[in-house]
């Protein structure tokens, strides 16, 4: 099937799906029958359910965004492997570490970085300057900056940019040509974020007391008001009171359980530039608490030692460094080492997901309210090009978005097959998940279409 036709078909299918409950609902429940009492409600029940699928737990409204980036691509044969449908797919050995979160992730095959085609520089520079900005040569702000400006709430800092590895200015931009440094030393980050911000326990107590006094008053007013209501009105007010109580429980929990100053378990003689695993754990803990304490709503993590991370020494089997091994690719000897390297990155990502799924946030966990993007400069490392780049989302894109899917837009295993889907579209999709109405992000390079990726939201 011609790709454009396929894309159109997908869009139409999506539209139909979206439109269906609406149209059906409009017909099935006449205005009067809907509200007419027991008979009408019984008739309508399956449809009311269909109309309010939101009621389910798990993914909630995303409030935060984390961009998690590594260099050097992946190996698609051992990544997310397509089956008979978007929900029927398997994870190759690279992705084994994230298997527990398969249902909380969306995998993509065939999203191109088309803007890289019009950037200047070598195989790395063209991707590094575009993969987070979608503007050639870093000519515009990176996505985290754009989103942060839109969704940060009063009192929150702007995007928090962390590195695993040495601090470096590589892919993030505040504006045209204005690179941002990702901070690699978790101890320094901790000191700058948390020394002044957490209120003293006395101040927290005062705030808690104030909140309690106000809510006690509200509940008193609820009781006074309720006394004069009829049965139906009482029922409705009680529903409101219940929600208020839930909110109170949640707020009380937020102050004490979830948000604390992070404790970093750093090994003796910790060196942030070389001790990558401990560094990733520490930065993950800082991220989790920065989110839980609402210090920021957007953060990034970059693995800055793309070429020769010391920790990969054991996989290299004769290659000079990790970068050389990636270039050699799976067609050469010792594919096993390549897989091990990529899986090491997946394991770091999985640990972060795991931590996010433990930290309480509102009625759920951080994972329930955070959109996480897992990106990479390349797709197939051997090509060092922008075709079918490594792309996945995790956490939540909203209560209605079904996770646990693999969406393919071109045959990722033929790295020379261009797709009609570009990274620009992925960012537009994420913007849409946050209620933003943008139809484009970055430069509309040749072959870049406007709009979000069909079938995601």
């Amino acid at each position, binding site marked *: 099937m011609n790709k454009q036709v396929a894309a159109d078909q997908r*869009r*139409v299918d999506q*539209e*139909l799906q*979206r*439109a269906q409950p*609406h*149209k*059906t*609902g*409009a*017909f*099935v*429940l*006449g*205005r*009067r*029958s*809907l*509200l*007419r*009492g*027991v*008979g*009408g409600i*019984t*008739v309508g029940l*399956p*449809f009311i359910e269909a*109309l309010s699928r939101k009621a389910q737990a798990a993914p909630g*409204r995303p409030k935060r965004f984390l961009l998690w980036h590594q260099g050097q691509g992946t190996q698609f044969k051992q990544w997310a492997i397509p089956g008979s449908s978007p929900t029927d797919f398997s994870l190759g050995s690279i992705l084994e570490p994230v298997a527990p979160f398969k249902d909380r992730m969306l995998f993509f095959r065939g999203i191109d970085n088309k803007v890289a085609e019009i950037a200047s520089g070598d195989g790395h520079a063209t991707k590094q300057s575009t993969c987070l900005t979608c503007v050639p040569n870093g000519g515009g702000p990176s996505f985290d900056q754009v989103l942060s400006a839109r969704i940060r709430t009063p009192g929150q800092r702007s995007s928090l940019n962390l590195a695993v590895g040495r601090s470096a200015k590589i892919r993030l931009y505040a504006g045209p040509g204005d690179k941002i440094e990702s901070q690699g030393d978790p101890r320094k980050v901790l000191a700058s974020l948390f020394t002044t911000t957490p209120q003293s326990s006395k101040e927290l107590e*005062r705030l808690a*007391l*104030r909140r309690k*006094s*106000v809510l*006690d*008053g*509200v509940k*008193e*007013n*609820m009781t*006074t*008001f*309720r006394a*004069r*209501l*009829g*049965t*139906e*009105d009482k029922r*409705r*007010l009680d*529903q*409101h009171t219940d*929600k*208020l109580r*839930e*909110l109170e429980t949640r707020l009380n929990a937020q102050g004490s359980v979830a948000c604390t100053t992070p404790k970093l378990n750093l090994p003796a003689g910790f060196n942030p530039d070389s001790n990558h695993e401990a560094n990733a754990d520490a930065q993950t803990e800082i991220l989790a608490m920065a989110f839980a304490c609402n210090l920021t709503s957007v953060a990034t993590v970059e693995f800055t030692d793309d070429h020769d991370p010391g920790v990969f020494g054991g996989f290299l089997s004769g290659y000079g460094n990790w970068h050389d091994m990636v270039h050699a690719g799976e067609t050469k000897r010792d594919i096993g080492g390549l897989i091990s390297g990529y899986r090491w990155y997946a394991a770091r990502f999985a640990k972060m997901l795991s931590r996010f799924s433990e930290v309480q946030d509102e*009625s759920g966990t951080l994972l329930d309210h955070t959109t996480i993007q897992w990106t990479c400069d390349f797709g197939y490392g051997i090509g060092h090009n922008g075709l079918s780049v490594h792309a996945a989302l995790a956490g939540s894109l909203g209560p209605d978005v079904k996770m646990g899917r693999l969406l393919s837009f071109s045959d990722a295993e033929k790295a020379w097959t261009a797709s009609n889907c570009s990274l620009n579209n992925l960012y537009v999709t994420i913007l849409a998940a946050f209620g933003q109405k943008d139809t484009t992000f970055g430069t509309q390079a040749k072959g870049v279409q406007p709009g979000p990726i069909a079938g995601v939201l």
Partner: protein
Amino acid sequence: MQQFSRYTFAFTGTQLQVFAMMRASLTWIAVTSLTVACTGTVTGGESGAAGGSDDSPTDKDAPTSLPQPGESAPLCKAPLPGLVATRRLTHTQFQNAIKQLFGAAAPTTNNFPKASIREGYRSFVDANSVTADGAEQIAAAATAIASKVTTDVVALAGCTPGATSDDACALRYIETLAQKAYRRPAEPAELATLKNTYAKLIGAAFTPAEALAGVIELVLQSPQFLYIAEFGSKTGASGDVVPLTDYEVASRLSFLLWDAPPNDELLQLARDAKLHTAKEVEAQARKMLQDPRTESVFGAFLEDWLELYRLDSQTKDPKRFPEWNDALATAMRSEVKQTAAEVAFRGDASLSSLLAGNRTMANAALAKIYGADTSMGDKFASVTLNESQRAGLLTSAAFLASHAGSQESFPVARGAFVRRHMLCQDIVIPANIVIEPPPVNPNVRGRERFNQHRDDPTCAGCHALMDPIGFGLEGYDALGRHRTSEGDNLSIDTSGDLTDAGDISGPFQGGPELAERLASSDVVQGCFVRQLFSYAVARAYGDEDACAILFVEKKFSESHGNLKELLVALSLSDNFLYRRVPQ
């Protein structure tokens, strides 16, 4: 002595139980009809207008069911309102209330739950129930507002509040705030709650500004502020009818006509017991209609009546309609609101002009759709439409584009709207069928795509009531543009049929004739009353509202469909002056 002179008796009705039984039986009819499958049932009015006979000395002839729109029936002799629920402020009402409470000092906050409607009106009680997210939003809004307005606490209170628990300035402000926020003088227990909270916070070493912020937060989250409730001027047993208090009438008027709480003037009238007779209420309502806020209320009603919320989920094929975007959808909504305001408040105010007039308010993007002069640019200007192509709201781009698919018109939805919202007939279809619009085919006319509806007897019953009306609007594409051909150069056939549509039954040709027909109908006029009534009482109308609706319908009819008179009549109807004591 009875308050409202239109009536001579106080009413205590056991009749209401009869209503309840009638209601139950109607529902049952609807349910059983479903098991017969899609043969089509038009509900409403099956029961006929059986005279409610009970021993009430007040009104032996009061109807126990609501006649069909346009059917005449004698007015009730005693007030008999339907139940009006206690209802949460809508998004707009909350915004207006905050503005009224704190004036310029109030921050603009959009952070208040919006009604969730897929049908019905944004005012509906059920569209404004408080969810978990909602409770959080309300709390967040209250906190933000309280902290902002107390930055200059002296300006807020008009005096300098002191750090003692019985500070006179602070307590005076709290009383004023409560009266304004609760839209009536606060009861002693309610005042005690607020004053005690102030004292508690001062006791915990909060500053006067912080303590007042706490009290404001409390007030803004309290049901006394968040809910509009009526209790009446005296207590009664379930089913009794009691007059509203003057304060409650003030709230009724201002929320109905302004979507806002009563201003100082109305509160003063209530305090002086000057909202006490129908005459006083009428005078006040007429005065309030001059305020532009009434235009917004009427516009909001029309948006929902036309189901324009469908625009929010509309997608249009970018190849066929590259001009489709959010700005255009917003302009479409705007057109409806502005045109309605022109007709109702600056024009002849007649429903028929609204339904079949040939002038509209449009910007260049809309004028292009209408094939009119586009020199006005982004500003809205009055545009005269081509009478052979357009007439009234039903041929507006907003209605046509919202009742369409991404590529083609959707005659079923267009017809269903007329049936349900203009003729007040419910279409009930079985729950277990899949609705799948037939695929678009450039070689087949739209109306032929829906042949299955005609040929399959299980579908034909319902669709014979909807599709033929929609087919009459086939002269407009999915964006609302007029057209004379469709698909692969097939000529358009705009013949339609209003089956079983009372005084306007019969075949018609195209949009303008359909609009003219509807605009001339007593059924449509009566149905419009029922729709606006539902919007105003925050729930779907029913038999229990028979007395009120008959009164409004009669007044509206006597005024030859004058929309301003309709609003006045509404504010004088039983549901707005009386309360039926619920269970």
